[in-house]
């Protein structure tokens, strides 16, 4: 892996040296992708249809499970920006009269790696043996077996994807993570939770009220959110499994934009009890720990750096909303966004060096943009519809956001360079996404 990324870096550098002014744009992109976002040319990976290796006849239901589970592994690996899924080209198969692709066939289709899946159904369980091959030279490089209840086939499939990502990249895969978001239900807005890919959607709050800005506790067990349950926007929490919301903080005025510290002990949020929106840190019982901002303007949308020492936030102290940075005592405030008349909703990358936010771009709509914490490298990531509320995946490799590009608002993901955009929800009326912690 090192050799490959080194080669890509060398290519990028030599390209910069030979670039003339016309190619400047392109070199900027390569530089940005390789150096800033860590983007490397995705590796090509194929996933074979799951094969049944049991002794008895297989039921139609189990056969469907195998088919669906294969699809989940394929979509997981395709979602991961460091991989490209190699799909079987039926024209190729027909032309060469290939009934079943062998390793050489996969290699000819461009696959660097192949995943082979073999299933059994002992009792009420599903047992899948996965094997990972390097296609040239043909060689098994990793394998494992996973077992769970039949109905948890989706979990088994995500676990396989996690194992493959861990072997090939050394990183924890995000495939068992959860997302939370707001969905409009009639006049109400309720909190929903789903798997990272939008599957298994379930309603967490059933208040009939307006609930906004969900955020997971660091262990993923609770969701903090803003609710109008008592008439004013106040801070509540609810179990990620659902249940009755509990009020955390109800100061006079608004209590909004909760952001939980990386250690899970404190909540940065906006209180307007002094007559104006200011950023505070409160504890989990709702007591004020300290006030961070003191300005006549609107200060809102705090986000913690991964080390818990810095904070980015929105303020309109310059006359329009802009993103600022300060430490968690409110000292050393500096403006981060040099461009644009409207920059809001910052979120600090889980990798630490970049802040993504919403920017009103020259096309007059709201787009995701990102910038280095030094204030360099402003970059626009989207160009369709209105895009809002970015949030990072816990591994820092993906951004989830809401966009109206296909109607009334659905959730999408993109990688850090804005590539690989995917739609997660199809119901419309979805907004305010957030991403829970890594789970295995």
């Amino acid at each position, binding site marked *: 892996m090192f050799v490959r990324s080194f080669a890509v870096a060398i290519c990028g550098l030599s390209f910069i040296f030979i670039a003339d002014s016309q190619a400047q744009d392109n070199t900027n992109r390569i530089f940005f992708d390789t150096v800033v976002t860590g983007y490397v040319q995705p590796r090509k990976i194929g996933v074979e249809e799951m094969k049944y290796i049991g002794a008895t006849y297989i039921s139609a239901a189990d056969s469907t499970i195998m088919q669906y589970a294969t699809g989940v592994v394929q979509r997981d690996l395709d979602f991961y920006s460091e991989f490209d899924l190699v799909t079987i080209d039926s024209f190729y198969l027909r032309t060469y009269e290939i009934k079943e692709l062998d390793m050489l066939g996969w290699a000819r289709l461009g696959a660097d790696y192949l995943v082979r899946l073999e299933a059994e159904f002992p009792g009420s369980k599903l047992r899948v043996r996965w094997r990972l091959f390097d296609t040239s030279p043909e060689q098994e490089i990793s394998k494992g077996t996973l077992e769970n209840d039949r109905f948890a086939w989706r979990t088994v499939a995500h676990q396989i994807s996690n194992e493959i990502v861990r072997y090939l990249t050394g990183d924890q895969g995000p495939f068992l993570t959860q997302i939370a978001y707001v969905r409009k239900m009639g006049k109400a807005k309720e909190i929903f939770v789903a798997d990272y890919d939008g599957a298994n959607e379930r309603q967490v709050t059933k208040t009939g009220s307006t609930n*906004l800005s969900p955020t997971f506790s660091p262990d993923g067990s609770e969701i903090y959110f803003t609710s109008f349950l008592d008439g004013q926007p106040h801070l509540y929490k609810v179990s990620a499994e659902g249940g009755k919301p509990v009020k955390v903080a109800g100061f006079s005025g608004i209590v*909004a934009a909760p952001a939980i510290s990386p250690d899970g002990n404190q909540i940065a949020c906006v209180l*307007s009890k002094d*007559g104006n929106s200011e950023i505070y840190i409160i504890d989990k019982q709702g007591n004020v720990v300290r006030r961070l901002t003191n300005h006549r303007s609107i200060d809102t949308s705090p986000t913690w750096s991964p080390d818990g020492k810095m904070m980015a936030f929105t303020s*309109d102290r310059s006359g329009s*909303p802009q993103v600022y940075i300060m430490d968690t005592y409110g000292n050393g405030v500096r403006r981060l966004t040099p461009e644009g008349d409207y920059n809001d*909703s910052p979120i600090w990358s889980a990798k630490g060096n970049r802040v993504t936010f919403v920017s009103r771009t020259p096309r007059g709509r709201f787009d995701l943009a990102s910038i280095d914490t030094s204030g360099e490298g402003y970059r626009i990531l989207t160009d369709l519809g209105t895009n809002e509320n970015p949030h990072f995946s816990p591994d820092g490799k993906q951004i989830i956001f809401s966009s109206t590009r296909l109607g009334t608002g659905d959730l999408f993901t993109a990688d850090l360079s804005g590539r690989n955009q995917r739609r997660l929800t199809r119901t419309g009326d979805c907004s*305010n996404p957030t991403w829970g912690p890594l789970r295995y």
Partner: protein
Amino acid sequence: MKRLALILAVAAMCLLIIAVGCKKPPPAPPEQPKIETPVETKPTEPEKPAVVEEKPMIQESQFQTVYFDFDKYNLRTDAKAALDANAALLKQFPDVIVRIEGHCDERGTVEYNLSLGERRARSTMEYLAGLGIDAGRLSIVSYGEERPAVQGSDEGAWSKNRRAEFRIISK
């Protein structure tokens, strides 16, 4: 179809009555008399004992809504005129307690708009207090972009959604 038939029937009746009454042809719109009659019956209410208590008949709709510019919470000239009228109402009905609701258009993020809506409600409240309205009769809430008055994604809808509305809490 049924409705059309009904309207036609009513129209025909009207025409008939008019024709019989004075043989003049103007086909008057048939729906108007229906609406006007209940309205006209109202003024025949004055009864002496009740008047003393039920005198403060104030409707929420008598309060004017205040509108704002994009991403702004300062009061425009038309907003101040509307608030002057609202202040006169509040002075006329000294027992009325109102809540001022601040709203935003759909642009911008949910969190920022919660704060912006509150600023709009607050500048509205402060202006009224400056006109001598007891602050104890005024409270505020921000709904951000959550409760648009008008659906739509153009300036026509947005300009109607950037507003501060008055709700009567008690009379």
